[in-house]
């Protein structure tokens, strides 16, 4: 990937000065509902994004995440609720007055303008002096490593280069908020990984810019976001730090959408509020698991175990063991993925590479530590009571 260029640090050094001159606002959604005709695309979204925070809106297609971003940009007007940038209510404000930088999936570079003209566009629209425009364009192109391409036209650039120019163009106006709408989805896997690192680096260099990052890719969300808002069917499902949502998923949907998850229906036998642990029963086995919400003996709950938390090797004292029948073995280069049938449910295990994987049909024991298995909250567990966890989607 293209790295930083000489002179780039000038922009980075400018950032704290800019921040001290004017505090960057965050974003606040207050009960925002957006509808297209009779179709509700976003329902009652309330969410606070702190200044300088990277918030990922993560969800499947049609979950309302792009609509939320477009509402912040001003391209759709909520039928209910208010949107604030800092303390300013921007709900009715036209897009050109919001001072927001935006990067979209297909880059949307102006095809008849050279790279430098693209980056200068927002500055010219804002009436910046000519000298300042030239300086700022140079700084921003250096920031994204595209200074050598200033006189090229967009069609002369690769996808990754176009995306860098799009980011430079958005940053040129010193936006209070940066909106990224699936910015990497048009890139191939290798470029995507590199650009992900670049965006993370940019945010480290411009820590005062609030970023709203829309994606359906959990890896992008986990890598970049300070917090993740998980959305589904036009609603906010859960919000929390990437680690919390991954390690202690509050809901069944989040457990399966943020990372891969094994979900097993278990019966609570005992709950220890002090240690936030529970003893549960799975078939004939008793397991010790983490429980971050109150559980009542006799309840049926869903137990979430990440595939990589399961091991074929026994844990130290206090570990849990599940036994199942091996149904599939897949070699993935750096790891083996095993599929087991446990109590009528298919479970997935990500193991380190095995020299001699067990044959299909063999009974296999897998082990996990109590803190690696989390009991999902009651509302979700109750709804799933009595059902088997469905076979897992191979997301990773």
């Amino acid at each position, binding site marked *: 990937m293209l790295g930083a260029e000489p002179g780039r640090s000038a922009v980075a050094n400018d950032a704290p000065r800019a921040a001290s001159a004017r505090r960057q606002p965050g974003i606040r959604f207050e009960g925002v509902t957006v509808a297209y005709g009779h179709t509700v695309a976003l329902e009652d979204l309330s969410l606070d994004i702190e200044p300088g925070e990277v918030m990922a809106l993560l969800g499947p297609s049609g979950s309302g995440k792009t609509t939320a971003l477009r509402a912040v*940009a001003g391209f759709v007007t909520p039928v209910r609720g208010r949107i604030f940038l800092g303390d300013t209510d921007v709900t009715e404000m036209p897009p050109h007055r919001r001072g927001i930088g935006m990067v979209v999936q*297909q880059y949307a570079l102006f095809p008849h303008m050279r790279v430098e003209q693209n980056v200068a566009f927002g500055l010219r629209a804002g009436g910046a002096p000519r000298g300042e425009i030239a300086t700022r364009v140079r700084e921003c192109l250096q920031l994204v490593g595209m200074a050598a391409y200033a006189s090229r036209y967009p069609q002369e650039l690769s996808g990754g280069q176009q995306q860098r120019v799009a980011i430079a163009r958005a940053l040129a106006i010193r936006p209070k908020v940066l909106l990224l709408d699936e910015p990497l989805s048009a890139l191939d896997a290798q470029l995507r990984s590199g650009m992900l690192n670049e965006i993370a680096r940019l945010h480290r260099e411009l820590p005062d810019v609030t970023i709203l990052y829309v994606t359906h890719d959990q890896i992008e969300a986990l890598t970049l976001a300070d917090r993740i808002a998980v959305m589904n069917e036009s609603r906010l499902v859960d919000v929390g730090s990437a680690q919390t949502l991954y390690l202690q998923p509050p809901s069944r949907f989040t457990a399966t959408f943020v990372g891969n998850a094994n979900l097993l229906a278990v019966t609570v036998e005992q709950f220890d509020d002090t240690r936030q642990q529970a003893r549960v029963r799975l078939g004939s086995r008793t397991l010790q698991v983490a429980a971050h919400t109150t559980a009542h003996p006799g309840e049926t709950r869903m137990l979430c175990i990440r595939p990589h938390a399961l091991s074929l090797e026994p844990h130290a004292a206090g570990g849990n063991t599940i036994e199942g029948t091996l149904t599939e073995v897949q070699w993935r280069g750096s790891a083996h993925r095993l599929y087991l049938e446990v109590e009528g449910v298919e479970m997935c295990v990500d193991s380190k590479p095995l020299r001699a994987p067990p044959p299909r049909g063999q009974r296999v024991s897998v082990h996990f530590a109590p803190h690696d298995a989390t009991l999902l909250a009651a509302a979700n567990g109750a709804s799933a009571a009595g059902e088997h966890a469905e076979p897992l989607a191979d997301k990773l």
Partner: protein
Amino acid sequence: MPLAVLFGIFFYPLFFIAKQSLTGDAGPATLAHYTALLSSSFFHAALLRTIQIAVLSTIGCLVLGFVLALIVSFVPFPGARLVSGFIDTILAFPSFLIALSFTFLYGSAGAFNFILMDLLHTREPPIDFVYTKWGVILAEITFYTPFVMRPLLAAFSHLDTALIEVASSLGARPLRIIREIIFPEAVPALLAGGSLCLLLTLNEFGIVLFIGAKGVITLPMVIYGKAIQEFDYTAGCVAAVVNIVLSVGLYSLYRYLLSRTGGGRASVL
């Protein structure tokens, strides 16, 4: 065989017109017929008037067509699709129908004058432009604007709305977006539509004839007058050759501009 058919039904008559313009009814080939017509002030006036009407009509079509295409494409309103379909219908009309409707609407006994005379309590019709060159120009703008709109609508339908949204988020107001984002994308379509308009208005006969504007003599009217009314077939052929040269020249320019601007996608007519 197809070439022979094409030659027989198309090129032979053209060849015959060119031959007639040089030889007259009988006699050796000479440029005397050209000299006679081209040096007449009557012909100069007709040529100038033809170009003037064609250029002004084309400019009017470009301006009106661009504005209307912008509204239809980017300003959501109920019935936008209907309007788009109606444009196609106008393209199928004969041009003289517009001239006819103009006389019904704006003529001295037309609907507008009738209403205005009633409102203003006057016996003289207040609107009196139909039977002038401005009436011809307005009628041609009305009829030929869809020829500009159609390629523009096609071009706008291919315009990525994300360009407009990003420009807006960068602080650009609507006029700047139209000027700097939409207009450059529309240039090939404007060139294609405008060139076609110029070509067609240069040769327009039905509107001029139906409006019957006093003193508005254009090249097609000269051809008609000489060949049909005055039975001066040779002079009519000379005027026709000049008209053909003008048209072919403009058509070549149209193709050249189209190839230079990559307007192939706009040439949907």
